């Protein structure tokens, strides 16, 4: 319950705007064309995208034909339910292996927040008394290993890293071995940022995943695609291509502490059926929330319970 409140609070800034706007445009009675137009504007401006927006508006229109929607509350309920439904349909709890170690690999385009999110997830586990190893498989970006090393030290995780420019597959291999040998509960693999349009880099990523899978049966338990919450419609393309290359199991939506609404996650959920697992809400190690579809849906439209 307390977690739930925390999460909702985090989204409050986001949702308050949206809510105010909806209140502004809502007139009791039937759902008018004018209303739908305004709703469309709100969703589009939240980066939900043309297609998902049109579908949501259309289904609300149909709904309103079936019954008169008379109050704001009712409208919120319907909209919330629609968004929640989309996430509920694909909901998957975060996978934790019964046999140690659990392995998560974080992937994504440059600068989306992979390394920071690794630190945050590590902190979450370490706070529960778990042993965490992070693998510096970004051997490409200048000072990437140093960045991860600093985070690891701050949160109390062990780190496996090679020289700059080393084969990321080899780092993953060593890290997997180390995680087994040192009986770690969780292995987090940080990978270099890569644009999904770079075929060779996507191949490199596949290799990292293969290496981990070979060394640790059942791994990786999650391949998390880190998407910047300010991303526009390209997020769909990112998700599509990353999912085609490596089996993306979930999304970490970062930087929701800004003014962006992260609506692209809704489009991704709708079109590609990839669930959101974590939400990043700041640069500190504690600024991570486990994604809760219920709370997200409420956050978008509710009166902010």
């Amino acid at each position: 319950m307390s977690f739930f409140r925390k999460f909702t609070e985090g989204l409050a800034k986001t949702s308050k705007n949206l809510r105010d706007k909806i209140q502004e445009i809502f007139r009791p009675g039937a759902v008018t064309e004018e209303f739908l137009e305004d709703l469309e504007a709100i969703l589009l401006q939240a980066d939900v995208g043309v297609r998902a927006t049109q579908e949501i508006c259309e289904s609300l229109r149909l709904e309103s034909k079936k019954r008169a929607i008379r109050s704001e509350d009712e409208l919120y309920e319907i909209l919330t339910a629609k968004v929640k439904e989309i996430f509920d349909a694909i909901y998957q709890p975060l996978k934790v292996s019964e046999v140690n170690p659990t392995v998560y690999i974080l992937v994504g385009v440059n600068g989306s927040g992979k390394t920071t999110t690794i630190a945050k997830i590590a902190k979450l586990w370490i706070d529960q008394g778990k042993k965490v190893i992070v693998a510096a498989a970004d051997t490409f970006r200048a000072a990437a290993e140093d960045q991860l090393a600093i985070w690891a030290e701050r949160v109390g995780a062990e780190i496996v890293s090679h020289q700059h420019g080393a084969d990321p597959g080899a780092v993953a291999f060593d890290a997997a071995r180390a995680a087994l040998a040192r009986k770690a509960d969780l292995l987090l693999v940080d990978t270099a940022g890569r644009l999904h349009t770079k075929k060779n880099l996507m191949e490199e990523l596949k290799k990292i995943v293969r290496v981990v899978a070979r060394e640790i049966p059942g791994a990786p338990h999650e391949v998390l695609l880190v998407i910047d919450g300010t991303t526009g419609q390209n997020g769909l393309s990112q998700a599509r291509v990353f999912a085609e290359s490596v089996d993306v199991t979930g999304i970490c939506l970062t930087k929701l502490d800004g003014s962006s609404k992260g609506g692209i996650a809704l489009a991704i959920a709708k079109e590609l059926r990839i669930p959101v697992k974590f939400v990043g809400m700041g640069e500190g190690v504690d600024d991570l929330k486990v994604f809760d579809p219920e709370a997200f849906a409420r956050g978008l439209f509710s009166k902010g319970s």
Partner: protein
Amino acid sequence: MKSRKMAFENLAEKLAQTFKRLRGKGKLSEKDVDEALREVRLSLLEADVNFKVVKEFVAAVKERCLDSEVLESLTPAQQVIKIVNQELISLLGGKARPLDLSGNPPVVIALFGLQGSGKTTAAGKLALHLKKNGRKVLCVSCDVYRPAAQKQLELIAERAQVGFFTMDPNTPPEVIAKKGVEKAISAAQDVVIVDTAGRMQVDADMMEEARRIKEAIDPRESILVADAMTGQEACKVALAFDEVVGITGIILTKVDSDARGGAALSIAKVTGKPIKFVSTGEKLEDFQVFHPDRMASRILGMGDVLTLIEKAEAAFDQKKAAEMEKKLRRKEFTLEDFLDQMKEVKKMGSFGDLLRMIPGFGRAHVDVDIDPKEWVKIEAIINSMTPLERRKPEIIDGSRKRRIARGSGTQVQDINRLLKQFFQARKMLFQMSSPEKTGRFRLT
């Protein structure tokens, strides 16, 4: 597959379809133009142009459409595209704008932006760019927050072989910036590039810090570094940074993604500031002067359409092309045609190059390039086929492949590769040649 298809479902095609439908009713009316502009609107929204910017933009375009001969034109779709394209280019600043490097050295350039937008890499790229133009450059890191950010710039500066300066991360960033500029003066540098920490425009403290940095060093250029993949918030972000530090220009990063890059338009429109450079890859050299016309085509999802048209027009044998177009409309395209086409294509450079000009089609997905050395092989293979096989390559099974391979002195893989290329090419050609196309893909 989906992404491939989408590249061709672009604005030009949609407009052509809309107008085709409207044409049936005779002379076009204002309402018809509205309907066509709906397609423009959707296309821009899909490209992430800000909702409000789209609204104003479309209104402006409409006015021009009604003023001009669009209503009477026989090719209204092309007219609309032309107007939209012109308006986009002018909003994006018309032509490339250079950096302001005038006045007494050192010229101070400060980079600002959201977290992860690519400031540090851009700092290094800009440094290298200026160094190649004969300037002595010092890079200064004021990012005391992100772990190892200073180290990152130090390594990049080293790689670009330019100077680097920073101070202990407990030092206030504005002090580091100031000392950095002093260092540049004493070391007789021409340019100082000051990299700052990423910050959210809603973070009042951090924006206040940005203002202090700006005041401490009074930069000639305050550059906003923005990610080409940014969505609707690009406007608010740009406005906020402009208000606090007074931006003088923009560097657009990650342009090597397949994002249509509508954020560029949003930012240019709301700030009125020019985009100066685009960052297009992992290497420090992947950094270019911004060209509004290219970005306009990209936002429209049309690639370098004009270049494409020009190239195609220059290379194709008109008569042959007309024949080919008829065939394509009947959805006929055989391996013999393929051979003919490949000969034509050879005249205009590689097919892959041509396709790569179409954004969204993507650098990643193009696999149709044919190595000149392959030519001989391809001809040999096709010549070893029976007429039926050439007309209906679908029937070529394993045993036929082996026979053809033997006949042409090649391997079965070669046959497979050729067929794959053929099927890809055929598919694309059919898509490009649905009737009532605007001029761009018409081969005549």
